[in-house]
């Protein structure tokens, strides 16, 4: 922590000195490109925000800022594949929460334009090395499906965690269409309630048959919506005069297979139904919030469907599941050949993203895969691997400079660059730290 304070003035001074703010040479560091093995004592040359050269011997070009990073490590910026950061400030103050619009179908909503660039959470999330977030318009809490989130919540956007306006933060305004697969909810779960066994005391519960019917009605709604969107698409393609509808308009990229549907589905049953639906509708999907894929794993792998995993720091879904069930899921998917990335699905705890991958690495996931799951894999899943996700020539310089492995909890992020521009690592946490350290 103290190290930050030593390095911060240096960085700010450097920024003031440099002519071009997004060009520099970083020297004497251990570079972890993610796409390949680590390079000792290497340099990264950044010109106009893009990586111009990586290697042991790189000469500075012209009058360029040189940063000595002896003993430090360079990694690509981490990517959180699902978080409402910027859309929600204080959960208990409704006015500061912009997620979860009312209504079942809101594909026309775009998360990015509602993001508050001045959110106090953004610097906090950055502090652990996260440079990029897929900002999700719907609520993502809960593993049993978000009944209040609507079925199609809107467009998730990929954004940088720096910028004065949302336009400056934008990477891809529409990166995925967030959808929740309906869950059969019987209100069950948790340990058996003995009192509910007692007649006369039993609170009324929804029977399985009723719950299944409710769920089927919701699935039918989805089907109807897709059918209507397809009719709109065809009518538009045929040049027929139709009343413009933003909702169907927003569905066209999905129907064309250009925009992936990010379907929240935790358990085997929902996943199976979502897979069948995707096959039937010929749409591209990404499964998200997967918890208990069961026998569907092979199918997911065979059909090359990417998966977004939520935090493993939860209790197992079923009472008798092994304690490490949430920890080993990533390794299990990797073994089956499924491509996956991690998401926090959280605002302030998005900063724990690297430790989600770390927990999976501690429970059987190869380390390199763990690192990829918060960098390159995420960039590939969201279709931006040409510009982001690794330290390779030609990509944007989203870099973090650390004093160690970013998946390690004791590691400090010393510097951060987004598109080659140094980013302030001060946050509410460091401000509070300073304030209380200075207390007499």
């Amino acid at each position: 922590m103290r190290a930050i304070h030593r390095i911060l003035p240096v960085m700010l001074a450097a920024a003031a000195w440099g002519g071009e703010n997004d060009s520099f040479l970083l020297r004497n560091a251990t570079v972890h490109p993610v796409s390949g093995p680590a390079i000792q004592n290497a340099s990264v040359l950044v010109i106009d925000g893009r990586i111009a050269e990586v290697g042991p011997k790189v000469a500075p070009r012209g009058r360029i800022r040189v940063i000595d990073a002896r003993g430090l490590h360079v990694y690509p910026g981490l990517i959180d594949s699902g978080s409402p950061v910027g859309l929600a400030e204080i959960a208990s103050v409704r006015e500061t929460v912009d997620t979860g619009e009312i209504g079942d179908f809101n594909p026309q909503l775009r998360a990015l334009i509602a993001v508050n660039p001045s959110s106090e959470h953004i610097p906090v999330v950055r502090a652990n090395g996260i440079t990029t977030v897929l900002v999700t318009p719907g609520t993502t809490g809960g593993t049993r499906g978000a009944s209040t989130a609507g079925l199609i919540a809107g467009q998730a956007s990929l954004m940088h965690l720096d910028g004065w306006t949302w336009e400056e933060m934008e990477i891809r305004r529409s990166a995925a269409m967030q959808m929740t697969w309906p869950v059969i909810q019987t209100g069950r779960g948790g340990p058996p309630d003995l009192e509910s066994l007692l007649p006369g005391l039993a609170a009324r519960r929804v029977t399985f048959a009723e719950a299944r019917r409710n769920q089927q009605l919701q699935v039918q709604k989805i089907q109807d919506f897709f059918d209507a969107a397809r009719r709109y698409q065809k009518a538009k393609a045929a040049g027929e005069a139709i009343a413009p509808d933003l909702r169907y308009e927003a569905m066209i990229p999905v129907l064309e297979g250009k925009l992936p549907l990010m379907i929240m589905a935790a358990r085997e049953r929902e996943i199976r139904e979502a897979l069948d639906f995707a096959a039937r509708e010929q749409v591209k999907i990404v499964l998200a919030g997967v918890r208990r894929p069961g026998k569907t794993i092979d199918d997911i792998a065979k059909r090359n469907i990417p998966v977004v995993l939520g935090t493993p720091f939860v209790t197992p879904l079923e009472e008798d599941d092994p304690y490490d069930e949430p920890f080993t899921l990533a390794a299990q998917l990797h073994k089956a050949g499924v491509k996956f990335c991690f998401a926090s699905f959280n605002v302030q705890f998005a900063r724990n993203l690297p430790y989600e991958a770390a927990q999976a690495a501690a429970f059987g996931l190869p380390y390199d895969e763990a690192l990829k799951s918060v960098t390159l894999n995420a960039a590939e899943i969201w279709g931006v691997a040409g510009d982001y996700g690794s330290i390779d020539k030609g990509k944007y310089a989203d870099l973090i400079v650390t004093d160690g492995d970013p998946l390690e909890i004791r590691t400090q992020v010393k510097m951060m660059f987004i598109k080659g521009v140094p980013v302030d690592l001060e946050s509410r946490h460091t401000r509070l730290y300073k304030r209380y350290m200075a207390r007499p």
Partner: protein
Amino acid sequence: MRKNFLAAITAALMAVFITWLPAPAESVSWTAIRGARIVPVNGPVIEKGTVLIRNGVIAAVGPQVDVPASAWVIDGNGLTVYPGLIDALSTWGLPQAAQAPAQTAGRGAQQPPQLPQQQQPQQPQAQQPQARSRGPQDRPGTFTWVKAADQVQPSDSRLASARNAGFTSAVTFPRQGIVAGHGAIINLGGKTAGEMVVLPEAGLYLALRPSGYTGFPSTPMGIMAYFRQLWLDADHYRQALALYAADPVNIPRPAHDRALEGLMGVKRVLLPAPDPIQMERMVKLAADLKTPAVLYGVVRGYEMAERLRATGTPVILNVRWPAREPGADPEQEESYRELRIRDLAPTSPAALSAAGVKWAVSSDGLETPRAVLRALKQSIDRGLRREDALRALTLSAAEIYGVADRLGSIQPGKAANLVVATGDLFDDSTRVRMVFIDGVRYLPEPELPQPPAGASGRGPSSERGEDQ
């Protein structure tokens, strides 16, 4: 002469009197069941004997009994006579709508829209969710003035099916709110409600789940604190009344409180205790209330036997053994804990008997009265002795409610509540030939179709219509 005349008149009058007075005595009705196997419960089985009933009371039992010539004799050859069975926690005989809110209302006001309104409730105030209560002073969910004895209906269609299964008595409780009201021990036959009631005050039924009202209390700790306050208030009320009675001039008149009036002279409270933790709480609560407790709704009795014996707390066992709900989610994984409870629950009776805990049986939640016997048969298959099962259904229930002098065994002086069956009660092939209630014989009759139990209509539906 005149004297003689007066004497003659007096004598004549006396004669008239004498002939008039003993008239009822001459219509003594005798009934004898002869040559039957008799299981008196309180003593050894009589392989071939006679039960003699005089005016609804057992007059004599034994291998050799002198039967008066006027007795109506029933040939008991090949039949077995048991004391009438007692359902120790029931709603039989009460209007069924009265129990619907308690069954359906969960936390808050989750009344299902399809709640059947079969009958107009007798206690309208018991049905309507009350205004939001803010504290103990609002007496939330409290119905201490409700007495099952006042609500008994001889027309209840469930009585016939209960008799067909061998039940002759039940301890029946109102169900609403958290202090539901006073139970009554009733016989399951009689022309009028008054005839049916054996004892109007069997105990006060308490629940730990708020229903039918909103507001305080909504948690177990709130409810238990409320019970304590209620009892303290009753104590204070009693003292205030006594002071006022002694000095009505100087002492202000205490306000009448029907909730507290209903707490005067409560003999016992019925408290729910499905598991060992709840049992500990309830035993302590009863000690705080200085009122003897009977625990009901016991599910994990197999773990509670030792502690129950140590505290001397009797138990009403719920014999609707936990089972997988029919139509449950086929993909729902059942936890080991759940399966374990399901497996062990039927061993509770044997465990309680082995430990020497006094226990009786409730038909609550079972679709038919006959299912009680079948449930106990499951326990017999898991190690319960038949005589212990029978005792729980008869004498133990009578002892728990303090009516062992009248009910529960075949003994001279007790009410002639008897079951005459073709064999052992717990055997599937056994049929009940007749039952006697206060000496009146009831023959099995075709049952009326039952309305769905409670309002939810859920539970082991396969058992419906079993006895029809």
